[in-house]
């Protein structure tokens, strides 16, 4: 018994010694070959972009318009021929070589209700909480309800009613406004939007940016981000204005939203 044990221990010790020597040999003996340096990644033109060099980004309005059609001979545009199913109408196949065709966003000819997201009912709902967060059916908070109930029927649009209405709208929108994680430079930027709404709460078109203040040479990139974040808050179906008092529609059919992040972070 003890002899076997001694043999086992001796065997294990030999194996350990051999492994240790092998490891130290591999660590100590050979020089490490110099690593291959990455080849720089070059910026190249794609699709209808006149240039993708790092330069001031085009504004949203400027980005996808048709101004670059004739300036861009090389196109990397999706080839409808490779698409097994008929492509959507907006990307109707063109004869090759098609000029770069910037896709302007589909315009909404008539204001239609924003499509209600349909929560998926499968296991992925359990995995991805965002599915539960954003597309839920819009429901005004109790606070908003209490405000709206406080508005007397047939109320005239006096200052008090307007203030109450403003609070109701504020209570809807702020939940979808992410002021961002930018530093002090971003906090000084205020964005004023004009919003037009249908009776059912649907936003008509896109909110119009009336003005932005607090933008200087050092924080221009934040200005664009602030504008996008404000528009996103208004357009988010999770923060729809549906359910505001219809009898006061004149008061909220066309209003201004002033996003001020100075006290948010």
């Amino acid at each position, binding site marked *: 018994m003890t002899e076997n044990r001694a043999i086992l221990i001796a065997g294990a010790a030999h194996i350990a010694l051999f492994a240790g020597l092998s490891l130290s040999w591999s660590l*100590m003996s050979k*020089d*490490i070959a*110099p690593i291959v340096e990455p*080849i*720089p*990644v*070059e910026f*190249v033109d*794609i*699709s209808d*972009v006149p240039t*993708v060099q790092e330069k001031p*980004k085009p504004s*949203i309005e400027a*980005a*996808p318009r048709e101004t670059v059609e004739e300036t861009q001979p090389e196109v*990397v545009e*999706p*080839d*409808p021929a490779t698409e097994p199913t008929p*492509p959507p109408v907006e990307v109707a196949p063109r004869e090759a070589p098609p000029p770069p065709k910037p*896709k302007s*966003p589909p315009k909404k000819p008539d204001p239609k209700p924003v*499509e209600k*997201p349909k929560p*998926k009912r499968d*296991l*992925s709902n359990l995995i991805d909480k965002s*599915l539960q*967060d*954003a*597309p839920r059916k819009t429901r005004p908070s109790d606070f908003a309800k209490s405000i709206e109930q406080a508005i007397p029927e047939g109320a*005239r649009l*006096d200052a*008090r009613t*307007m203030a109450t209405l*403003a609070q109701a709208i*504020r209570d809807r929108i*702020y939940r*979808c*406004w992410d*002021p*961002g*994680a930018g530093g002090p430079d*971003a906090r000084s930027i205020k964005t004023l939007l004009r919003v037009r709404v249908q009776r059912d709460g649907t936003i008509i078109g896109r909110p119009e940016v009336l003005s932005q203040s607090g933008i200087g040479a050092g924080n221009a*990139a934040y*200005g664009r*981000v602030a504008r*996008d974040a*404000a528009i*996103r808050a208004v*357009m*988010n179906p999770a923060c729809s204005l549906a359910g505001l008092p219809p009898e006061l529609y004149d008061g*909220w059919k066309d209003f*201004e939203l*002033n996003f*001020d992040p100075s*006290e*948010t972070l």
Partner: protein
Amino acid sequence: MKSLISALSALLIAIVAMPAAAQLRVDINAGISKPMPIAVPAFTTPALATTAAGDTAALGRQVAEVVSNDLASSGLFKPINPSAFTTNVAYADVLAPRFPSWRTVAAQALVTGFVQVNGDGSITVGCYLYDVFSEQILAREGFSTQPAFWRRAAHKCADAVYSRLTGESGYFDSRIVYVSETGSQTKRIKRLAIMDQDGANHRFLTNGQNLVLTPRFSPSQQTIAYMSFAQNRPRVYIYNIGTGQQTLVGNLPNMSFAPRFSPDGRFLVFSMAQGGNTDIYRMSVSGGAPQRLTSAPGIDTAPSYSPDGTKIVFESDRGGTQQVYVMNADGSDQRRISFGSGRYATPVWSPRGDLIAFTRMGGGGFRIGVMRADGSGERLLTDSWGDEGPTWSPNGRVVMFFRGQRGGRAALWSVDLTGVNERRVPTPLDGSDPAWSPLLP
């Protein structure tokens, strides 16, 4: 009193009787910050083709995965699980996404793209960013590289998305050099290692024969300054990444350590012990005599330049305990900027210039903190037992450091400037002393 009441009454009547304002104006002064839901479906390909790194369809999936992981790692985005997607993205959808289906999965932003092989064997990765609610394109970038470097194209795409949606510059296409550690506490083997910021493409630079410490990138990223105990003499060396060559810096007579490059890459600052005193010196990378910048009794070490090269922050125990000091780049106007309880070490100036990260020791632990360059606004980012050695991401939004454990183990971690989103940085072995590179070219 009567007049006050009547004045208030008049004011109230005036308010109530005021005709309706021409237009309702609503002030939004509060919001909710949370990671933005973003969809990053697999990048498509105009024509399936084989490359040395796999076919373009597989590359498309991998590129999307890298982009998604980069964005998630920032803590500012929440990539939506692809299993929830309700639509397949075909090549035609890259330029004309079906926005309603992305709204269905609650995506606020969408990244699409493609991978194609060019005539010369290189690949082009196209990267498009859309706002799902307003159905607007926000950014588009194209990147051409050899297939083997597809990860860099993916990181550049993620940088473009991050930059457009946050207003900050990106940091994903960057690398980390650090000290890889293995072995028992008494026989620790320490090797220089380099990897992408997400832990990919890990490579060892030295073979572990000599103990190494404090590697630091040069601005060009072609060289790394570090301290090695080669020949049992701790001295500063420069490692050339391209050739693997290691060069002793100067023929300094004494122990030299804690090197760091100037922002223009022309100078090294480091500490050198001489006559019982340790001071900070500056020396041209091309050689020459070192210039002494400090002379106070005690240990002056861990120098780090401001990004404009005009100032140097360092630690010194000249006042009795380790504290953070700032001086002009020529050594003049040395002044203490840290005044909290405990001790401060390893200060590092942010690439943005506004903040200095440091290790704060006291209260039974080592923690990472930041303060403004004048010493004000100090706050701690971590709360652990052994956090040390901060290094900044190229955009100054993230701090990486190493977290020691009782027993000698150590690992790399990163934390957002807001003190949230603490993440372990994957390394094959233990890791310490990380240094973040600037953005790759």
